[in-house]
């Protein structure tokens, strides 16, 4: 069959200033297939896809759509060529309705009234065809992320995209939502559409793709038929060395209770109870994992312990001292470190240079300066040390933090908190959007902390992560701890508890 590939890239090259994001990339994506793209953080996946979508322009190279070279200068050209993209960071207008977002750029005339009824009908059709239901009149800011992503997919389908690019769509989804997404993708493929899927989760690649391409440091290093490869091979191709996909750890040797939470109740800004009378202990030398579907109070629990949110009632004790009303600075002084769930909102100031973030929150330490003055030399030397130890790339303490990829940003936070050698560490989503090489590294650090006799509390929506790291697992549902299990409890048992069905 002499069918042209849906997309063919020839010699694509792209730099952002000094960062060479894509180097001479060649790629063929066959029609009617799901093509996976994997690669470490900062490998250049998003950049490459944004070039296909006309969001960035390549410095060199050619894009062929259906065999014909196409000069994609802006997204308009890409959309006209039947390309749709769901970006890693959503491109939605938050105070617009779903309908307005879908129509934006495809309004069907100068006046909105004409297009609206057509758009409603089309949305209805897409809803029934693909099971992508969202209320067209809901405001984006009121929707959970899973639904927001649906809107992004609807936007592409509404423009009758034949080629759909999804950049890390499952990073923000619950397992059930991800399953549903994959069903939709399979339907699209069976209709002859082409799907490009970027993800860090190799299991997803194995489950749904037909072919998979691997990127490393800006280069396309391999393309494999999914049926002819293994998770181990892919991991090795991605990182350039063998990767341990399992966490290796010995038995825990728990000591005395270090962190103790008693009858803690936390409310959110609207006064809704998010954490409901929760009690537990974390001992020295153990990792306690908190499992749960996102939004069941884990975030609020973390924030209360970290001193960011005032508890409504209850007690928190660190080494016997009450800390429920201490602020974060005091908690740090007492030896409680915190790796926040959302590195962009809480962990980092993206406009700062790397070295500034590497001491953020600890900048008052006499090591980093005297009185009102900072000792920049000392801070930078310290940052370089952390960069080396944690393999943060690119190894440049003077680079703006926004220019690091997600995984490397996460390493900056992890390095900062762990290197302070705290007594207790509370960790939220340590590996969200992080590649497997970095995951392996971060996991190893966490286990080392445990073995050094620290008390660790881990919150993650990745059940695998919880199960492989924790010594004890608490399951949270609707603000309550509904049970405690050991890590060898089956996935299904835990899944049922997380859904509030069994205890």
């Amino acid at each position, binding site marked *: 069959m002499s069918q042209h590939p849906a997309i063919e890239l020839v010699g694509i090259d792209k730099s952002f200033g000094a960062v060479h994001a894509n180097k001479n990339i060649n790629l063929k994506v066959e029609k009617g297939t799901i093509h996976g793209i994997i690669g470490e953080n900062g490998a250049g996946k998003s950049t490459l896809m944004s070039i296909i979508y006309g969001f960035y322009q390549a410095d060199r190279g050619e894009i062929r759509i259906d065999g014909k070279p196409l000069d994609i200068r802006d997204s308009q050209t890409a959309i006209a060529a039947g390309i749709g993209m769901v970006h890693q960071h959503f491109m*939605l207008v938050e105070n617009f309705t779903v309908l307005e*977002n879908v129509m934006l*750029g495809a309004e069907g005339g100068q006046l909105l009234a004409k297009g609206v009824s057509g758009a409603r009908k089309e949305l209805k059709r897409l809803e029934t065809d693909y099971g992508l239901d969202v209320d067209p009149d809901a405001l984006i800011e009121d929707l959970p992320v899973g639904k927001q992503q649906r809107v992004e997919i609807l936007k592409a389908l509404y423009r009758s995209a034949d080629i759909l690019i999804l950049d890390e769509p499952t990073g923000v989804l619950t397992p059930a939502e991800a399953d549903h997404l994959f069903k939709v993708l399979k339907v699209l493929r069976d209709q002859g559409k082409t799907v490009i899927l970027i993800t860090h989760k190799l299991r997803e690649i194995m489950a749904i793709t037909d072919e998979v391409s691997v990127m490393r440091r800006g280069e396309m290093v391999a393309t494999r038929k999914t049926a002819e490869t293994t998770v181990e091979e892919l991991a090795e191709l991605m990182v350039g060395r063998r990767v341990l996909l399992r966490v290796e750890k010995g038995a825990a040797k728990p000591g005395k209770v270090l962190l103790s939470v008693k009858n803690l109740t936390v409310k959110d800004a609207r006064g809704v109870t998010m954490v409901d009378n929760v009690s537990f202990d974390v001992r020295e030398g153990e990792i306690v994992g908190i499992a749960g579907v996102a939004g069941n109070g884990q975030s609020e629990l973390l924030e209360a312990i970290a001193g960011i949110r005032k508890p409504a009632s209850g007690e928190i004790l660190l080494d016997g001292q009450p800390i429920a009303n201490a602020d974060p600075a005091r908690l740090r002084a007492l030896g409680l470190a915190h790796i926040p769930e959302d590195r962009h909102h809480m962990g980092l100031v993206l406009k700062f240079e790397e070295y500034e973030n590497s001491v953020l929150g600890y900048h008052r330490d006499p090591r980093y300066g005297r009185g009102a003055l900072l000792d920049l030399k000392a801070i930078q030397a310290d940052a370089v040390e952390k960069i080396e130890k944690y393999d943060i790339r690119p190894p440049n303490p003077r680079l703006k933090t926004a220019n690091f990829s997600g995984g490397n940003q996460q390493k900056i936070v992890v390095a900062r908190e762990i290197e302070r050698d705290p007594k207790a560490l509370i960790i939220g989503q340590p590996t969200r959007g992080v590649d497997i090489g970095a995951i392996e590294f971060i996991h190893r650090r966490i286990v080392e902390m445990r073995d050094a006799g620290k008390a660790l509390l881990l919150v993650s929506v990745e059940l695998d992560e919880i199960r492989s790291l924790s010594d004890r697992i608490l399951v949270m549902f609707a603000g309550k701890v509904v049970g405690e299990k050991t890590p060898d409890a089956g996935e299904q048992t835990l899944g049922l508890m997380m859904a509030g069905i069994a205890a």
Partner: protein
Amino acid sequence: MEFYDIVVSILGSTIRLSIPLLFTALAGLFTERAGVFDIGLEGKMLAAAFASACVAYVTGNAWLGLLGGIGVSILFSLIHGFASITNRGNQIVSGVALNFVAAGLTVVLGQAWFGQGGRTPQISGEARFSPITLPFVDAMRDVPFIGPLYVHVISGNNILTYLAFLAVPITWWVLFRTRFGLRLRAVGENPGAVDTAGISVTWLRYRAVIVAGFLCGFSGAYLSIAQSAAFIKDMSAGKGYIALAALIFAKWKPVPVMFACLLFGFLDAFANFMQGKAVPGIGEVPVQIFQALPYILTCILLAGFIGVAHPPKAGGVPYTKER
């Protein structure tokens, strides 16, 4: 009945003082909704006032004067656009610079051309927009209550006044009922969404600043060839800033903008009325208090006492793809 006459007279001047604010605030609404801060409203208004007066004086035609004002004001807008949209400069700096340019240039050119210390010569007749008398004024004159209101507040204004009030529903309609409006609101919130929807952020923002220039042309012309009969140095007298305050006070919404402008116009009219009059028990109230009130009210609003004002999210930030 004397009290009612005072009320009517204050309302009449409220209208007259609100019009330049209204045009200017609507102008600001278009740019700021598109994510471009426009502190240069004041300068545009002043430059347009000067240009209108010059053209009206030379041609003897008020409409041509208006056109001249619009042209110059759009030119200023384009400079602002070039600095802040094309070259991604700081929007506040660009706006402030334009205000200084306008304040200086109008006086220098006025002196060079007319030699009257920065004033333009007096104009009259066809060169001005004069008050229009609406039908039935004579019949209405004797109707109690609504009569004086009709005669002195509703009738007897110049054409620009009526256009200003017409501009409010039109702005609303453009913003919420047209494709241009949808895209404009979107680009002020998340230009990335507009860009990835295949729409040019740059061109869209340029169109927004051009509309703002157009509207500022009207407010400038109103000042020099409708309300007065000549351009006088610094005649905008901070109205651009008050309009900006009204825009924030109205939370960037067209109909509330109109009410905010009327409120601030009323404060101004009331201040004029109170000048030199003593309030029983308090004594004479300094007019400065009334002049400061628009700003004070806006500050109270911004401090969160009268609801929360959410400015367009992407406001003031040049759009770049490079991080």
